C-alpha cells in the first residue's frame, strides 16, 4: 500500500515516499510525511504497521541524537544503519517485534552517499537503488534498466518521475502525491512534491 524509493548518485541520494496515511479502506491523511530526519545528513524512511513505524523511527531518531550529545560527533550513515538493524533484530524474536520496512539514506563526509535497504526481518543491504511496497514490484525493473552509477541530479529526478509515472498507470491504488528529498554534502534538501497532473 505504501511506497518508498531511493536512488544513489555519485555525490547525492534521492529519496521519495508517498503521502498517504490509510486505515483499512480510508485515506485518513493525504499529506503525511514518512521521512524522519536522524541527523543533518541522514534520513530514515519508514513504512509498515501503523504504530510501529512512528514508535521505532522516533526511537532510532532520539538515540542517534543522544549519541551526538554524548560523544560530540554524529553517527555515520553506515553506523546508523547497523544500529537500526541491530535494534530490529533484537526485537524480532521478542514477543513484540516491530513490523517496519526501512530505507536509510545519508551522506558521509568520508565515504560519500549511501542508501541502505532494511526490512522487517532485519536484513540490511547497501544498494545503489531500492524500493519498498507493492509499488516496488512495478518500479524495480525500471530502475534496473535505466540506472547508472554516474547519474546527475536531474537524471535521477527523471528516473524517479518515470517510476512514479508507472505507478500512476498500473498500480491499483491511487498514490496521489510523493514527498521528494535529496541528500548531499550540504545536507537535506526538500524538492518539489510530485503530484498527479505534474509531469
Amino acid at each position, binding site marked *: 500500500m505504501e511506497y518508498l524509493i531511493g536512488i544513489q548518485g555519485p555525490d547525492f541520494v534521492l529519496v521519495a515516499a508517498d503521502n498517504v496515511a490509510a486505515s483499512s479502506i480510508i485515506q485518513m491523511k493525504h499529506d503525511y510525511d514518512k521521512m524522519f530526519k536522524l541527523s543533518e545528513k541522514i534520513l530514515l524512511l519508514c513504512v509498515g504497521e501503523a*504504530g510501529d513505524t*512512528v514508535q521505532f523511527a522516533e526511537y532510532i531518531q532520539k538515540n542517534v541524537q543522544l549519541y551526538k550529545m554524548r560523544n560530540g560527533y554524529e553517527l555515520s550513515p553506515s553506523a546508523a544503519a547497523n544500529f537500526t538493524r541491530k535494534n530490529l533484530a*533484537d526485537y524480532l524474536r521478542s514477543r513484540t517485534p516491530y513490523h517496519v520496512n526501512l530505507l536509510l539514506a545519508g551522506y558521509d563526509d568520508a565515504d560519500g552517499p549511501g542508501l541502505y535497504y532494511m526490512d522487517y526481518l532485519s536484513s540490511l543491504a547497501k544498494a545503489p537503488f531500492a524500493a519498498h511496497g507493492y509499488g516496488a514490484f512495478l518500479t524495480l525493473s525500471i530502475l534496473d534498466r535505466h540506472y547508472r552509477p554516474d547519474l546527475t541530479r536531474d537524471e535521477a529526478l527523471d528516473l524517479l518521475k518515470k517510476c512514479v509515472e508507472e505507478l500512476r498507470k498500473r498500480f491499483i491504488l491511487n498514490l496521489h502525491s510523493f514527498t521528494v528529498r535529496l541528500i548531499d554534502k550540504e545536507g537535506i534538501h526538500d524538492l518539489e512534491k510530485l503530484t498527479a497532473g505534474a509531469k
Partner: protein
Amino acid sequence: MTDYYNFGLRRLKKSRRNSGIPLHFFIPTLPNPAPSNNRSLFPYSPANQSVTVRRPFPLSHGTTTLGFIFQGGVIAAADTRASAGGLVACPEVHKITPIHSHLVVTSSGSGADCMLWERILTREIRLYQLRHRRCLSIRGTAKLLSFMLHPFKGTEVCVALTLCGWDKDAGNTDCTKMSEDLSSTTDDSSSAVCSSQDVTAMAHSASPSSGPKLIYVCSDGARLQGDIFSVGSGSPYAYGVLDRDLRWSLSKEEAISLAREAVFRATHRDAYSGNNVDLFHVTAQGWSQRKREDLKEEYYRDMKRKTNIVEG
C-alpha cells in the same frame, strides 16, 4: 527533572520492549499467569498474547464520530448509539467527553476501553497541569496517550480517539479544569456559543503551536494530526458528505449543520450508528456543547425536503 512517567526507568534487557508506563492501576490476575522474569517489577503489564479471558459476548465497534477544523474553531460530532452485535445496548451514550476546558475527545471502538482511557487521560493531564503549572499541548497529550496505549498493541484493547482542542499561546498558561471552567452547556440550541463574535474575528493562528488542533490516536499506535477526521463504522459515509462541502470559510452555523448532516447520513446507512447526535464546538474560549438532537427529526426534515423537491 524527575521522570514521572517511568518511561525509561526500569532497565530492560534489549530483547524486551520498554513498557514503562505511568499507570498504576490494578489488573486482575489472569487464569494462567505466564512466568516472566522481569515483569514482576512493573506495576502491571499488558496481557500476554497467549493468555486471554474468555469473552461473554463478541465485541463490535459501531459508531460514527467526526471532527474538523474551520475558521471558527473545531467541531466535534458523534452519534449516541452503543451496539453489541445486533443489539442496541444503549441509545444514549456520550461519545464526546471533555478532558479540560479546551480539549474534547471523541471515542470510537470498544466502549469500555474508551471510557477507561478517557478517564486515565483526564487524570494524567490534570496531574501534568498540577506538576508543571501549565497545560500540556494537544500534540503532547496525543503523544502521551499514544505512548500509554503502545504496550497494549496486539491485545484486544480497541480505542480510537480524536482529540479536538485549542492550543493556547505559550504566554497563557491557564487551563482550567473541566468542572470549574466557564464554558456553558446550553439548553437552547440557537444560543449555543459563548462568544461567536470573538471566534470569527480570530483568524487561524499562523503560529504552529497555538490554535485549533485535531489529532487522531488509535490503539494500533497511529497518531495523525490533520484538519478532518471521521472514525467508526459510519465514517466512510460521513467522509462522503464532509469532503464535498467542507471549506475553511464556513460560518459556525453552517459548520454545525454540515456536521449534523454528515452524522445523519452515516446513521441512515450504517446499522451500528444512530439515535441522537452530539455536537461540540471548541474555540479559544473553550468548548461549548449543543443540546443533543434526535436524528429522527432530521430524517423527517429530509423527507419533507425531498417531497418538496418532487412537488415543487
